[in-house]
């Protein structure tokens, strides 16, 4: 009996071990301990923007980290910077963003031929581009991919987002009111693509560099069916690199290998890019310090330690953060009250102390270094300057005027913010700034998770909301369309007819008169800021440790963050 019992015990233990331990075989390959990265001090720490001039030397292997798994490699389903990053490295669309975010030809042979009215675009394709399975890249691949993205059966999020009101019939097709074949894109021949737009879209050229507009090989995608893009085995590529060892359900590492069949392979100098997912900043920093990786992004607490070293770099992003003020609230409907709030916050201290990553104060509704005037080439921000800056004295005056108009001596406002560490710290700081400067103001913060904040935003259920926006195409309208009365994003009940008219004109009558259109945007921004419809806070930067020997990496304002096509290592 006793013997049997012990046997049972042993078996039970064995069973439990067996049940839990079906492990093994799940470790990923990819030698990430790059011992090639012992740096010799590069004399030039710029790295960015010089595609010519530098000499590649040493082993051309880059070891990088990312903070997130690639959510998808299916261009129809990609929605975030990580997906667009690796699509951008492994796939080639008609154009690709080059230096200064200018579109340069990719699969397209040259510049597009655009009709007088800006509606019809004819693009000749190069005949030497091939997929990694050997098939040529043809106009049919674009037609197939774009139709797939807009087809409601695909369930793509960015398909309708990027194509509705741009490509002819896109909206109707997505609503199920037209057949996908009616989409405004057709293959005139294997190497000629004719695109018909809903209206002359001034930024369509740069839109063609975006991930949603990448081609897909119909035969391969159909063959793979539901398995398409589930691992790197279920993908084919036509870009500078091919993806290997990517299997997001099992591991968090992957490799980009130079694509020898890429039409412009001789430009590509990097042989290999190894990427691992690391979410913990301290781990990234440790890996960087031991030379295992060539770049690590830094959070505020590490910036102090590394700022000023040769490896420290900050890269500005065109992402803006601001306070949305809901004018359903009686106090916030008052312009003086809104101005007071917008002027009362010391934004310089906010970026220097709380964020500490190179972010800069924002004093308007369009970020710096984003678009330039079509004629003069001047930056939007240089033309319009600072429109809503910190001024505590003026804030107090506006506040008093606002209180008098309302006939009250105190105001209580709800404040909707995020629940991350930085967000709560920032919101506490803003509350403090507001309450200290504006006498009689009480701010009640609710820190909620992102999804909850969105739900409340959609329901217009907030007084003040700390919110942000990243651009989706290179045009001021990506920022300014949001604030019109009929915009789907208008949850703060701001209505200004002058503003609406300016934006409407820019998006209709002026589509082919680009300088006049740009002036409309400049004017509209002035109106928006004069109304203090939103209170701009800051434009985000990201801080990195970056091996000085890595050069030629392009920084992109939309879609993917970086482009490695022209990158090289100079030891």
């Amino acid at each position, binding site marked *: 009996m006793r013997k049997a*019992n*012990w046997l*049972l*015990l042993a078996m*039970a233990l064995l069973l*439990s*071990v067996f*049940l*839990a*331990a*079906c*492990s*093994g075989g*799940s*470790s*990923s*390959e990819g030698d*990430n*301990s790059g011992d090639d990265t012992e740096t010799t001090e590069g004399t030039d720490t710029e790295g960015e923007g010089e595609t010519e001039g530098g000499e590649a030397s040493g082993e051309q292997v880059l070891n990088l980290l990312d903070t997130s798994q690639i*959510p*998808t490699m*299916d261009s129809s*389903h990609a*929605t975030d910077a990580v997906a667009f990053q690796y699509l951008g490295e492994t796939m080639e669309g008609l154009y690709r963003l080059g230096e200064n975010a200018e579109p340069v030809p990719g699969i397209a042979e040259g510049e597009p031929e655009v009709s007088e009215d800006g509606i019809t675009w004819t693009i000749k394709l190069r005949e030497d581009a091939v997929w990694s399975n050997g098939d040529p890249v043809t106009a049919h691949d674009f037609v197939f991919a774009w139709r797939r993205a807009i087809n*409601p059966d695909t*369930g793509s*999020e*960015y398909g*309708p*987002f990027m194509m*509705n009101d741009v490509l002819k019939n896109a909206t109707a097709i*997505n*609503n*199920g009111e037209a057949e996908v074949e009616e989409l405004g894109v057709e293959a005139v021949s294997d190497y000629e693509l004719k695109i018909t737009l809903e209206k002359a879209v001034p930024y369509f050229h740069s839109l063609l560099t975006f991930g949603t507009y990448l081609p897909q090989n119909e035969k391969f995608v159909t063959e793979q069916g539901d398995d398409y*893009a*589930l691992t790197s085995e279920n993908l084919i590529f036509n870009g500078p690199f091919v993806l290997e060892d990517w*299997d*997001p*359900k*099992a*591991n*968090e590492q992957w490799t980009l290998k130079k694509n020898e069949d890429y039409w412009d392979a001789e430009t590509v100098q990097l042989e290999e890019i190894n990427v*691992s*997912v*690391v*979410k*913990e900043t*301290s*781990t990234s920093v*440790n*890996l960087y310090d*031991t030379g295992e990786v060539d770049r690590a992004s830094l959070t505020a607490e590490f910036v102090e330690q590394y700022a000023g070293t040769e490896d420290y770099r900050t890269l500005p992003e065109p992402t803006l953060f601001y306070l949305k003020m809901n004018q359903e609230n009686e106090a916030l409907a008052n312009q003086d009250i809104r101005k007071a709030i917008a002027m009362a916050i010391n934004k310089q201290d906010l970026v220097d102390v709380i964020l500490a990553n190179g972010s800069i104060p924002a004093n308007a509704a369009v970020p710096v270094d984003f678009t330039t005037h079509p004629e003069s080439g001047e930056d939007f921000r240089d033309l319009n300057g600072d429109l809503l800056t910190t001024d505590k004295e003026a804030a107090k005056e506006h506040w008093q005027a606002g209180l008098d108009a309302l006939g009250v001596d105190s105001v209580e406002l709800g404040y909707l913010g995020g629940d991350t560490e930085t967000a709560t710290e920032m919101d506490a700081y803003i509350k403090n700034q507001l309450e200290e400067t504006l006498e009689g103001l009480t701010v009640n913060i609710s820190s909620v*998770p*992102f*999804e*909850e904040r*969105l*739900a409340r935003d959609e329901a217009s259920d907030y007084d003040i909301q700390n919110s942000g926006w990243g651009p*989706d195409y290179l045009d001021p309208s990506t920022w300014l369309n949001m604030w019109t009365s009929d915009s*789907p994003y208008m949850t703060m009940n701001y209505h200004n007819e002058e503003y609406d008219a300016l934006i409407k004109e820019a998006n209709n009558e002026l589509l082919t008169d680009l300088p006049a259109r740009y002036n409309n945007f400049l004017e509209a921004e002035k109106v928006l800021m004069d109304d203090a419809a939103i209170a701009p806070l800051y434009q985000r930067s990201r801080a990195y440790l970056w091996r000085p020997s890595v050069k030629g990496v392009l920084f992109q304002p939309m879609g993917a963050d970086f482009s490695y096509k022209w990158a090289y290592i100079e030891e």
Partner: protein
Amino acid sequence: MARYILQRLGYMLITMFLIATFSFFLMKLLPGSPLKAEEKLSEAQLEILYEKYDLNDPVPIQYINYLGNLVQGDLGVSFQLNNQPVTDILANRIPVSAHLGIQAMILGTIIGMILGLVAAIKNNSWIDYTANVVSVIGISIPSFIFAGLLQYYVGVQLGILPIAFWDSFKHTIMPTISLAIFPLAIAARFLRTEMIEVLGSDYIVTARAKGVSNSGIMFKHGLRNALIPLVTVMGPMAVSLMTGTLVIEQIFSIPGIGEQFVTSVTTDDFPIIMGTTLFYAFFFILIILIIDILYGIIDPRIRLAGGKD
């Protein structure tokens, strides 16, 4: 015994059904949808997508559909990792978490038991005090502190073990140690307390009087009785260790299930929420069953229902 186990398995099914039901309806109370670009899409565009992913159906209908698929073993596909089948994600990531969890459990329990045993035998000696200090530290300091310290001193300064990733046995050492500290401390404390109590009880005195050897007393009578409370606490702990620990997996960049567990909730990735919850529940119930069986084996005084055969 067989009948007892069958009966328990029946209860297990009912429990699983209840858990599936509760978590499904609770999950549907979460704000937002699993779509990723929710913020950017217009109301009309969202409607079309809800329709496509059957998110517009009334919740009871969604529930019935879900149960139908569940019975057939279909857990659906993830939204965050676009189109990846949930079963594949679980099948690939749980073994990694379980591997780490089991190593940590084994290491922690064995060292903990030795420490507790020695402390009990050498009660009130310096060994006892040292063991006490170790277990207090182990219980009160969170594992990610150890992980961070190990990573910095062993990985960076000494450079003898890899800083992160999950490639070879060497890669598992630091995460295992960091994770083992807690079960080690718990095992040491429980065993010490129990042993001291057991060794003072009458039957041990009797055994000694009968001339049973010292080691016989220790292992046959003492340890066996002292194990019961330990098994009680270690079971649930094993479950939580083996089903993935977010923090340790993040620090060492281990492709386990811990992260999916947490991020699926914040991103409303319904199929993953359900998949991980059900797996966790199943594993938990199973471990409780195993523990109940173990009780009877360790201590014949604890009789299971119908356990006479």
